[in-house]
């Protein structure tokens, strides 16, 4: 009888220990996985020697650069630089990405927590491009939503201070369009980088279309743009190049 009760105690204690261990594992493993994923993303983002480590210019290019005006690069935010995920309070999220978010904040006006996912190589891209162009962010998102995200992306560097929001867009057929004249009145010196051809329709000759960023996909679109944007700043009129784009021909017709 004594042996049986001792065995029972050991058995119950063993079960409790196993349960506790499994509970701890269930809590720790996802967090550890989350952390390791974040570390891996940082590693992937910063290890490749991606683009010219320093801006070496030949004397010819230097003199050319002094002849042309400094250009303005107008950047779209949603699906170009970041992708965000809204999770309403009290609602169970569906198909939430299984990737560590870069930034989250609560928006009382929407009653939702917003999870922000940066496009790969965004920091490197902004670092390089801010040396070549004056940057302006033009988003069709509301100011209360976009402003905290842009503050996070800027990281106090002061490169994303020029901002235009939904109130600066023009509504046509229920969709928002952007006029880059608000960012720079001289159309020969302004480039718009956007993922939506509708939003670019007013300034098709000044636009570069980039594919939309999908969370979790291997994406090198921003890195691939660097040589193009580097060469574009040497032109007197960016439209000499950008008007050649065939993607907007359906708009022209």
């Amino acid at each position, binding site marked *: 009888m004594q042996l049986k009760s001792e065995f029972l105690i050991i058995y119950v204690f063993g079960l409790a220990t196993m349960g506790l261990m499994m509970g701890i594992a269930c809590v720790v493993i996802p967090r550890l996985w989350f952390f390791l994923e974040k570390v891996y993303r940082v590693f992937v983002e910063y*290890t*490749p*020697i*991606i683009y*010219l*480590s320093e801006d*070496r*210019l*030949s004397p*010819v*290019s230097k003199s*050319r650069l002094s002849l*042309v005006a400094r250009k303005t690069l107008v950047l779209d935010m949603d699906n170009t630089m970041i992708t965000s995920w809204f999770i309403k309070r009290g609602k169970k999220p569906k198909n939430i990405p299984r990737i560590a978010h870069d930034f989250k904040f609560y928006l009382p006006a929407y009653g939702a927590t917003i999870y922000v996912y940066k496009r790969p190589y965004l920091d490197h891209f902004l670092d390089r491009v801010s040396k070549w162009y004056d940057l302006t962010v033009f988003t069709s998102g509301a100011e209360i939503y976009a402003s905290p995200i842009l503050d996070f992306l800027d990281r106090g560097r002061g490169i994303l201070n020029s901002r235009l929001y939904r109130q600066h867009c023009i509504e046509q057929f229920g969709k928002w369009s952007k006029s880059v004249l608000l960012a720079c009145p001289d159309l020969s010196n302004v480039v718009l980088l956007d993922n939506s051809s509708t939003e670019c329709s007013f300034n098709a000759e000044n636009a570069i*279309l980039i594919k939309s960023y999908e969370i979790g996909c291997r994406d*090198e679109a921003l*890195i*691939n*743009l660097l*040589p*193009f944007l*580097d*060469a*574009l700043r*040497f*032109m*007197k*009129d960016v439209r*000499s*190049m*950008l008007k*050649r*784009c*065939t*993607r907007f021909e359906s708009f022209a017709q």
Partner: protein
Amino acid sequence: MEDTDQEDLLAFERRLAEVVNTEKRSSLRWRFVLGAIFACSAISACHWVRDAKESESVVFQILSSQSAFAFSLATICLLIFYGFNHATKQDPSILRDTQEMLSPFRLNIDNQGRLILLPRQTE
């Protein structure tokens, strides 16, 4: 084509060629480093294997006696960690990516970064 357009495209091409050639030189340097380190590793690995066959001591003891192999192995690991495997193949990848980027503009580039104007597609 207007004079301004032509001048602009020439300036664009010049910078693109500069970028491509700089990347080529950089990749060439990294390939040389890669070759040298691999040769060093291979030679010292042969010595290490020969020593390991003769002695019965622990792997790490042999590794500490073969400082050349340990050093070259550590260097390779460090370089791979810092992404030099990307740097050695940087020039073909930058060419491919730029060609992809230029295709909607009816343009292409050759291996030297010179622009090739493509005709407008007629349907």
